[in-house]
């Protein structure tokens, strides 16, 4: 169980709520204050720091996680709202021995420089490929248009996703 209190001072008065979520396939029970954001539960409560906090204002998409398979900006959802839902973070992509084809694609095609936007990019891309295994370049750009990258100019990110799509379809 994870216990998170944002303000220990008068925590006795804070109504905590118990939620049960699946995080990368593992059932997790947490006691959370209603105002706790999902991003903070993931990073501080669960220690999964692969989910990055960028703008904190619903713009950049660095904090993107999958909720029931759909990309969501975790800084703009309350942790308590995740009760009963499945969360996938970047830590849930690779297995112990193998990178996810998207991770391999970002490596092969130099899809990252500083890497800050990368987890959000890969999860948004994963949701696209789950829905559409053979996207056009235009569809990739469209699907990633809610995720900002300040380094790459996006070209190599798009190439990385297309590389992964080929790999997942068994064509590379």
């Amino acid at each position, binding site marked *: 169980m994870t216990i998170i209190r944002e303000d220990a001072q008068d925590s006795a008065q804070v109504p905590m709520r118990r939620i049960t979520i699946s995080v990368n396939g593992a059932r997790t029970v947490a006691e959370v204050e*209603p105002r*706790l954001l999902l991003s903070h539960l993931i990073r501080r409560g669960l220690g999964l720091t692969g989910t990055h906090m960028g703008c904190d204002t619903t713009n950049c998409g660095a904090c993107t996680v999958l909720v029931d398979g759909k990309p969501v900006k975790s800084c703009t959802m309350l942790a308590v*709202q995740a009760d009963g839902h499945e969360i996938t973070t970047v830590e849930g992509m690779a297995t112990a021995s193998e990178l996810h084809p998207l991770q391999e694609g970002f490596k092969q095609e130099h899809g990252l420089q500083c890497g800050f936007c990368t987890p959000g990019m890969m999860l948004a891309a994963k949701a696209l490929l789950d829905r559409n295994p053979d996207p056009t370049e235009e569809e990739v750009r469209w699907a990633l248009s809610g995720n900002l990258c300040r380094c790459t100019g996006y070209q190599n990110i798009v190439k990385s996703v297309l590389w992964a799509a080929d790999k997942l379809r068994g064509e590379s």
Partner: protein
Amino acid sequence: MYPSRFRYEAPRSLDEAIVLLHDGGDDAKVLAGGQSLVPLMKLRFASPELVVDINNLPGLDYHRRDPDGTIRVGALCRHVDLEHSELLKASQPTMAAVAPLVADPIVRNRGTLVGSLCHADPQGDWASVMLALGGSVVAQGPGGTRTIPVADFVTGPFENVLEPDEIAVEAFVPPPRGTPAGGYLKLERRVGDFATVGVAVAVETSGHTVTRAGIALTGVGGSTIGVTAAAEALVGEPLTAQQIELAAQLAAEAAQPRTDHRGSAEYKRHMVRTFVTRLLGRIDETAESAVA
């Protein structure tokens, strides 16, 4: 950033939600997609004491077309559902055009049309579209339901006519009085930015004659602007080049743009004229190619 402290309730029925809101009074807020409310709470522009999360209410995630042609959108229908809707692509071109342009793809997975109307941001895209289409909001409170035209629903920036214990459960567009045509064009600096200029055009035609028209503007005034003068000028006439020019002129005159970091007032007014001409011109071409 954290929201200030609040009590959170996630009722399982609409009646329960309304009771919670009734008891919560002015300090209660309804949470649906949360893509505007949560950022506002984080910035402390909104600090409700009670948040009533309606995401667990059953049966509100629909959008459908009634046999008479009314299009209904439930309070939990997400932008993404409307973006991928074959129903809208086939029957409501203005709604189909705006759905992929709202915010960004990730926000569209959570945000809702009804929530966007309630939030009443002057930069909101859906408000212009629903205004152009003559749409309404259905509100449910302790005394039952009432229907409020979108034109009367918003009273100012971020203000609507809902009572504290009412929930907007649906938005609808009345049956068309002809073949629906139109679209939405949005000028934005990048995906996810607010509209520099947005224009919604909804026209219904029978033969060559316009039977109903609506034009509304986003981002060029203190609130969404419905250009009734332009719409009235179009009705009862064929959609000729002269008529299109007149409507574009009236729309440009109705705009109240302000110079800011997104562009000069003059530029924005020019873009209103351009977008109206472009959107109406497309309908004209469609009509002519249908005849040919």
